[in-house]
């Protein structure tokens, strides 16, 4: 079977499938011929991706597999095909989603303690209905609260292969950095204070 044939079958199947397809799902299409292994399919996909290099569509791998999609740079024009604007998500929803994505598995109470406000049940419901989050278990504490986590659908939707591909979280500045500044108001004995407060973060109590 020629590479050309394999490539075209992959292209056609991705267009026909209506969902992302994994390499092994694609390889099953060839099973009867028994000639294609997964490496061959990967090579064909790479070749196809290269071919799409300057086209309006692109090949992209998400959590569920490969898909052919509209290149993002044409989103402005393409979105005009549909009169309704894409849904905008509230900050509350996005913050809740972010906490679930980065801190999963997480309980509602833990989300509340970071955001400082109660979790809106409608938001959790919306996220569930969109199949972005699901209950992954229960925390073994009194009340057995639900633990929430993200789904493969969530990754697909945001074009991610794994949860590690999320944008990195901002670093938290270490408390030790902040100590000298914090002590400025207590101006009488700034030097000794600095040492003593540093000890609080477990650095020992020796003089600086």
């Amino acid at each position, binding site marked *: 079977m020629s590479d050309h044939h394999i490539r075209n079958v992959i292209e*056609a199947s*991705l*267009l*026909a499938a*209506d*969902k*992302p397809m994994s390499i092994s799902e694609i390889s099953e299409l060839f099973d009867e011929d028994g000639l294609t292994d997964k490496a061959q399919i990967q090579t064909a996909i790479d070749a196809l991706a290269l071919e799409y290099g300057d086209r309006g*569509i692109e090949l992209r791998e998400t959590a569920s597999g490969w*898909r*052919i*999609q*509209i*290149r*993002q740079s044409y*989103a402005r024009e*393409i*979105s005009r095909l549909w009169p309704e604007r*894409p*849904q905008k*998500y509230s*900050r509350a929803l*996005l*913050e809740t*989603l*972010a*906490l679930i*994505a*980065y801190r999963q598995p997480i309980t509602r109470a833990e989300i509340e303690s*970071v*955001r*400082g*406000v*109660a979790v809106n049940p409608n938001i959790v419901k919306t996220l569930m209905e969109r199949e972005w989050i699901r209950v992954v278990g229960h925390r073994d504490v009194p009340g057995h609260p639900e633990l929430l986590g993200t789904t493969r659908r969530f990754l*697909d*939707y*945001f*074009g*991610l292969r794994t949860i590690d591909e*999320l*944008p990195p*979280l*901002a670093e*938290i*500045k270490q*408390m030790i*950095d*902040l100590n000298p*500044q*914090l*002590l*400025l108001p*207590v101006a009488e*004995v700034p030097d*000794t*204070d600095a040492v*003593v*407060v540093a*000890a*609080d973060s477990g650095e020992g*109590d020796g003089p600086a």
Partner: protein
Amino acid sequence: MAKPELKWVPTPNDADPSTDSPAQGETPFALVQGQPVTQLPRDLYIPPQALEVFLEAFEGPLDLLLYLIRRQNLDILDIPLADITKQYMTYIELMQELQLELAGEYMLMAATLAEIKSRMLLPRSGDVISEEADPRADLVRRLQEYERFKQAAESIDQLPREERDTWAASAATDLRRPQSRLPQIALQEMILAFRDVVSRAAMFQHHHVQRERLSVRARMTDVLAAVDGGAFLDFVQLFKPEEGRTGVTVTFIAILELMREGLIEMVQTEPYGPLYVRAAQTPHLRPVEGEPADNPTEQDS
């Protein structure tokens, strides 16, 4: 953003005495470029609803606090607590004036700020300081943690997402998409199935209800009485179909029981022929004695 400070100027004529009043009456708004503006257009006034929208946009006390800090370019690690608390309280009061429904969390934060401030005012001796961190530390940590996820939410929002930045491509195909069609169920089949269920349920029901009234022991007595004469009796005649399934079953069990105890015999003259029952030829007294005591209440049925 400092909308609370905005003031409405209600008397335009007093605002600028130098303007020519006759001309003003004709073309008050058309001379914006050429003439000094003499009358404040009404829509420059920021209505309370707009302020309400602005205040409602806060995602909670941490968000409001972060806004206050960021607006003034303050270092989150060194918050001037007295100022911030004062500003925070101004916003809270404003929200109350506008009768926004304030979540309890806002009040809790106000209390927390006040508590931190008061702890900072307490004199600290060297020994004590070594034991406790800056009173603001916990609040700073929470603010930082919240800000991280606020940013994370923004970056998630910026990820190229389906339906906004990209769409799955698909192509029409003439191939018939094989649909895994679920078998059609005729109404008749459903009715039949339901009938089965009903009859099964009925079995349970009758069994349950009639158990109280029908006693195998009592029925044994009845059967014995029926065959008392010593003559052969048609097996089928022992049953009363009007008693229903349960009654028939009880009779059957009674017959089996009587046979086991050797009180009746069953004979058949030819294969597949009718069955006949008669009292056993050798009397067994023991079980007969026990019968009346076993079923005192069922005698009348």
